[in-house]
């Protein structure tokens, strides 16, 4: 079965997104410029809530998200050799893939100071991962997984674990 790693595609998409936002910012300054084909959702078109605001990311923040994609494990796609069409991984393939890839932090940990306070940045291994699976009986089971290096490992752990709610045997 052919596997392709699409990390570079994700990175390219991230870089493209930065360029797209930069292009939008430039376009906004030119009265004669046509509207962009794909826009960002304007916060003014959203529901209004008392305690929440929505803002669009700055180019620096978009670049940070793109760097996450670049340094994370990347997404592995599985291709059906007969049809050449992308298909989903089996749980076994997912586990093998998760086990094979090294743990890579999204960003290197930074040590922080502010007054007397001392801090550190956290990587993906400190995140909580919401996962879902369809059990053999068709029941949908959701769980929140922590203490895993990344979301791919969290899902592999979950889909390969025994079914918690064993209905029949």
């Amino acid at each position, binding site marked *: 079965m052919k596997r392709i790693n699409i990390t570079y595609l994700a990175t390219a998409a991230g870089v493209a*997104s930065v360029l797209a936002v930069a292009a939008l910012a430039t376009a906004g300054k030119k009265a004669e410029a046509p509207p962009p084909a794909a826009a960002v959702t304007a916060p003014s078109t959203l529901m209004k809530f008392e305690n929440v605001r929505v803002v669009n990311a700055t180019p620096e923040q978009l670049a940070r998200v793109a760097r996450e994609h670049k340094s994370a494990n990347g997404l592995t796609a599985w291709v059906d050799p007969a049809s050449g069409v992308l298909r989903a991984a089996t749980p076994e393939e997912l586990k093998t893939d998760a086990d094979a890839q090294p743990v890579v932090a999204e960003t290197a940990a930074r040590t922080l100071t502010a007054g007397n306070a001392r*801090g550190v940045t956290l990587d993906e291994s400190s995140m909580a991962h919401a996962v*879902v699976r369809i059990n053999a009986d068709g029941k949908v089971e*959701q*769980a929140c997984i*922590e203490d895993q290096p990344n979301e791919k490992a969290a899902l592999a752990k979950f889909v390969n674990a025994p079914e918690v709610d064993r209905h029949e045997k």
Partner: protein
Amino acid sequence: MKNNKMKLRLVALAAASLGAFVAAPAAQAAATLVITNGNAAGVGFNDPTPVAPVGGNPGTTLGQQRLNAFQAAANIWGATLNSTVTINILATFEPLTCTATGATLGSAGATEIWREVTGGKPGTWYSAALSEKLEGVDLDPGFADIRARFNVNLGTASCPATLFWYLGLDNNHGAGIDLVTVLLHEFGHGLGFQTFTSGTTGAQIPDGTNGTVGYPSVWDHFLFDATANLHWKDMTNAQRVASAINTRKLVWDGPLVTAASPGVLAPGVPLLKVSGPAAGTTAGDHIVGRAAFGAALSSPGVSGDIMPVTVNNTVGDACVPLSAADKLAVNGNIALINRGVCGFIVKVKNAQDAGAKAVIIADNAAGSPPPDLGGADPTITIPSVRITLADGNALRVALLKRSRNKSGVIGNLTIDGSQLNGADAFNRVQVYTPNPFVSGSSVSHYDVGAFPNVLMEPAINADLTHSVLVPQDLTYKLLQEIGW
């Protein structure tokens, strides 16, 4: 059993939860959350695909509806928490991992942790958002306090096509996955509902200034092991590793959550009580999984000699009508049957037909707590429970010296009406400590024994409301306990 109760609870709380949602953004605004849309143009939150409004979400593009759902969840927290410092969430909808039968829904968490925070416990880690609330300033301007990313591909052909996000705001999700509920849960972790100490290794996070010496999370000040009689902050790494699998013996002992637990959790914990002259080391209370079929457990419950059904690893214990010897053994007694080969209802029905007054299914796989027994058969009228493999093995040892129809090991399948579901005898809420350390879920959740279900159990249950407050939920109480 729990599923049946879920339905009743859903009916009872539906109106209240909808009302609470509508009323959530009340005048008592207590904190402001800023959601930064980190998606590129045309994708994720910026997906221009036209959609019809759904469940109180008036967005007309997919991107708008996703952002509205994010806002709705964030607003519930904003209306609940108190902070003068804005809580910043960097959010994206992006491709995450999928298989044919599973998917990552999303990931979220604090981006930074801080110690020596004004108003906090010395030498103790706090999440970024809580640190800033305590300090009263943004400790790291320009950086988000919480990172949240969710799966943009859910529901597409290669990412369980039968699963889909429900983007309505009314909790009427049907077969869909309620994004608001998932966000409430994951934002809860990002706000500080978690320890940063590893349950796998027991290691605390260092900050690089003192070698590998780590510091406890504020969570670890309240995580109390009733067996070791220690808080996590006072344990060694090895002790914490053992504690993380000390099923239902690790509790949250903060006074706020403990005082609130009777207002949220229902009394009536199912138990197997073992006594009698031959009980030996098995004497005492054992945790059980309930059955979805047969008579419900009650108090004082059903009592009798526990008698084993002959082990048959080929046909399966009690998978066929019982032999004459097994009939003599279980008639008028409580049958002990090993799990495996055939369904639970087959085993229990065969035992019932042989005259058993109740059934204990001993698990055939290691693990605790024992899950519930599934299945349906209206002709089954006796109660049954599941116990762990370890408890089953111990019982079989105690049953070695028995007559053909008496064992001297007396079982009582009952309900302890004095104890809350999900708490210990002192109303201290139990945290999730499955043994083995199942699926990576950790002590940063309430135990799955909590009933009614609460938001911060590891399993995100379909009957949850959108409330984080008493009497529906215990999440905010815990956050208050750690400093919110």
